[in-house]
């Protein structure tokens, strides 16, 4: 065999290169996202409840937001009555983000983990992430 040294060295370099991302990440499985609900408004709630149950919101919030958007923009219906009979103003910017004023620790936490990049914030103004926000009227 000619040049076996070079070939084997080349092969080793190749294998190292290809497996480098795996080896370098070994054992450091990136932390599971832990969206935080530590915000002034949520902390003040006696019962910490979103507009719908947590499990539903986790799986379906994007669907819910799409429906909210269509309802408000296209039908002019702005009030959401949830399964518990409570009314909310359907507004990402004014209702969701009023409680979840920690977009970085709440929205981005999972969105980054999942590598999804929703373009809500190209238009909707995100909360200024400071602890002293003014609570706004959200429940009707």
């Amino acid at each position, binding site marked *: 065999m000619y040049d076996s040294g070079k070939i084997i060295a080349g092969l080793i370099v190749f294998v190292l290169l290809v497996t480098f991302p795996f080896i370098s990440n070994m054992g450091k499985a990136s932390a599971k996202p832990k969206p935080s609900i530590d915000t002034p408004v949520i902390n003040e709630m006696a019962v910490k409840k979103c507009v719908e149950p947590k499990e539903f919101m986790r799986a*379906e919030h994007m*669907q819910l937001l799409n*429906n909210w958007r269509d309802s408000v923009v*296209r039908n002019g*219906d*702005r009030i959401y009555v949830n399964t518990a009979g409570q009314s909310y103003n359907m507004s990402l910017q004014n209702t969701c983000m009023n409680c979840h004023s920690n977009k970085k620790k709440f929205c981005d936490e999972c969105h980054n983990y999942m590598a999804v990049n929703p373009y809500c914030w*190209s238009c909707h*103004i995100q909360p200024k992430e400071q602890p002293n926000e003014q609570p*706004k009227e959200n429940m009707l």
Partner: protein
Amino acid sequence: MSINRRQFLKMVGVSTVVGIGGTAVFNGLRNSGLEAAQTSPDPRTLTAKRWGFVVDTSKLQSDEDYQKCIDACHSIHNVPDLSGLPEEIRKRQEVKWIWTDNYERTFPTAPEDEYQNPELKEKKFFLFCNHCAQPACVRVCPTKATFKRKDGIVMQDMHRCIGCRFCMAACPFGARSFNWRDPRGKDDNGKPFVNPEKENKEYPTRMIGVVEKCTACTERLAKGMQPACAEASNGAILFGDLEDPNSEVRKIIATKYTIRRKPELGTQPSIYYVIGGGEHAG
């Protein structure tokens, strides 16, 4: 088992409240056991069959009075202010929901002659979307991003706009502006187009590449408030139901001489301009 009339009515009543008679929109949520979730309009919402405006600028004295209305609208809707750009570029890229112009340019097809009241030609008029009854913009929009609401308002769904600008070509009134720049951006001197200190935190901005225009303040109507321009106008802009013969706007249209912009094009604009208005006028 039989039910009597009273029980039947009760059942109908309850099922209406619970939502069988309401708008069950949330098809997608059905599977998740959320069929009771409902949407409804805000009870404070101002309603009409066809919203329209009467503009009588004789009620305004100075340029500041005009500017007050424009600022009221543009500030609450986070309309980007491109005034820091070089004049040539600003003229082409400007974003405006409400602005002013002279008689000739507001009513280019209105009959005129040399003996006409010269004051008329000096006068300034407010221009904004006419919320036409037969809107050209709605007919051409390929994505239905611009559409007509049941109350006559021509609405813009920014989520759907693809920025093709067909609507701008179709609108004969120049009521629409394209976002050539990111409204969140800055001009060459570092001045942001929407000042983060003054922005309305309860209203979105737009993004680069969509078309925007006056929405007749649908977000304010939903809270029972008048459009911002009308509120700031000292009575120069009136807002009301054109299909209600007893509304203020109809009473003025019935008693004073009013004209609309380019009515011959058939879009049926919903802004009526009071012409004259001195002591000789009706």
